[in-house]
């Protein structure tokens, strides 16, 4: 199996030719993908904020932002700049340390999770063999940050919002992990690369949605709840809790929460794309297509085309899911806290368990189709 373009290898090799030892060349390489990924994540946030505002406007027969840049594309930048220049306020009775640490603890694990998001065979920061598990464990740090900021704000709305956020994240973590477990069982690996690889070869037909339709739905519902998106935005329910744990936040600290929630949305969409929609795979199997046309897999232009198509496909799938999330936001009313917990514990959890059992059974019965 050809592994496609290896940017790291070629970068280190070219530095070695300049007379730099391989260890130092590797150190030169290290920051590049990280910086690129952070920039990518931030741009992804800007795009999704713009999409959210435009799609929301369209769903309500409005125009949405249109004066800042063409079609209002610069509106999220303007919003962000406004937040940067705002006064940094800490409430008088608040715990200064926890108050600052809270939003940081929410954002950092989300950005760290981008470590394991692959955009192609070699287009990711690290191919950990516990990849997807890292994401699950990192995402369970965020509720601590939320609880911390809710508690430190010295405000009853913030505290309630923080508690709700913690309850919600903890209850939806379990069906999420179970849905992931079913996928991991099918691909015999936790590595995101292996999970995508296992879906490749048959184009759109090989994607995990067809083998895990229930898991896909469970994962998407749980991911929405983890991101605190409507219909599960109870922690910040404006009508009851002012803004939940964000009530006392302003300026840059608030911006951290804001950015964190959107990065989390983009990240969840990317993970769904990787786990269930074939990651960077094109709907038509490109490798076989090249084979039929008689083009060698190692042809440079073909590798460039497949690599860029892979990035485009991953981003497209992720943004399609973001679009669905925005549409869902304007379709569904917010659930109550008891309904939320009922859905999590009494519906998603048993269904996810049954799904896992069924997957295990099918894996034993049809090892070819379900990754023996």
């Amino acid at each position, binding site marked *: 199996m050809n592994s496609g373009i290896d940017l790291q290898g070629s970068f280190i090799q070219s530095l070695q030719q300049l007379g730099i030892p391989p260890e130092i060349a590797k150190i030169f390489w290290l920051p590049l993908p990280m910086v690129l990924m952070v920039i990518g994540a931030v741009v992804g946030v800007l795009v999704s904020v713009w999409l959210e505002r435009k*799609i929301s*406007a*369209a*769903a*309500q*027969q*409005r*125009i949405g932002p249109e004066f800042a840049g063409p079609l209002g594309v610069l509106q999220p930048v303007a919003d962000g700049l406004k937040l940067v220049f705002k006064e940094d306020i800490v409430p008088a009775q608040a715990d200064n340390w926890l108050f600052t640490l809270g939003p940081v603890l929410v954002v950092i694990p989300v950005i760290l999770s981008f470590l394991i998001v692959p955009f192609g065979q070699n287009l990711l920061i690290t191919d950990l063999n516990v990849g997807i598990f890292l994401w699950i464990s990192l995402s369970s740090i965020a509720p601590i940050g939320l609880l911390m900021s809710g508690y430190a704000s010295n405000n009853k709305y913030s505290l309630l919002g923080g508690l709700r956020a913690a309850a919600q994240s903890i209850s939806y973590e379990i069906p999420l992990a179970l849905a992931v477990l079913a996928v991991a069982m099918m691909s015999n690996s936790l590595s995101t690369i292996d999970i995508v690889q296992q879906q490749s070869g048959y184009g759109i037909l090989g994607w995990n949605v067809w083998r895990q339709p229930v898991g896909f739905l469970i994962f998407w519902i749980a991911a929405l709840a983890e991101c605190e998106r409507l219909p599960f935005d109870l922690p910040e329910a404006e009508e009851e809790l002012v803004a939940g744990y964000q009530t006392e936040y302003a300026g840059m600290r608030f911006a951290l929460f804001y950015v964190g929630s959107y990065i989390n949305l983009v990240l969840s969409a990317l993970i769904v794309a990787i786990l269930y929609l074939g990651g960077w795979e094109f709907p038509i199997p490109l490798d076989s297509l090249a084979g039929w046309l008689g083009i060698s897999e190692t042809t440079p232009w073909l590798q460039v085309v497949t690599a860029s198509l892979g990035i485009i496909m991953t981003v497209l799938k992720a943004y399609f899911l973001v679009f669905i999330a925005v*549409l*869902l936001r*304007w*379709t*569904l009313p917010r659930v109550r806290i008891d309904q939320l917990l009922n859905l999590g514990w009494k*519906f998603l959890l048993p269904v996810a368990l049954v799904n896992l059992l069924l997957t295990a059974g099918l894996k034993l019965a049809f090892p070819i189709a379900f990754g023996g």
Partner: protein
Amino acid sequence: MFKFLKQVGDYAKETVQAAKYIGQGLSVTFDHMQRRPVTVQYPYEKLIPSERYRGRIHFEFDKCIACEVCVRVCPINLPVVDWEFNKETKKKKLNHYSIDFGVCIFCGNCVEYCPTNCLSMTEEYELASFDRHELNYDNVALGRLPYKVTDDPMVTPLREFAYLPKGVDDPHDLPPESQRAGQRPEEIMEAMKAGASE
């Protein structure tokens, strides 16, 4: 055992139904995305108020006979009519007249009942002020005529939906002589006259 299976089946049926309803809801929101935005870019664009729009009330001081009918028909007796009896002419002489638009509900009863038609509705609706006492209009303020939207060079006047030509639903860039759907009142009058003379 069968009871349990039935319960599971019912629950599954309910779930499927819920999913179906969510799908229907999604199709409604999706459908709305292709519709024309109804946005009016105020203050660069303004809708032309309809003929019977009930805006700020106009008052003609000289026509008023201080009969106080407007006060009596007003739900809260709002108009303040300050008059004194002129013994020589044996007529009421109006000194001041005022309506507080911070309290007025624009029901139009005063306009309806005024025997001399000295009260009328205008199409003015931009009454915002920084002090609520400024909303208490005296007879001078009530006598001012509003600035028409169609005369304002800063504003693109937009027609309301009912005043658009047949089949058109976008008020922007209409051809200048386009008429609304159906006949205009004067056309109906002419048709009726023609019908009567036949």
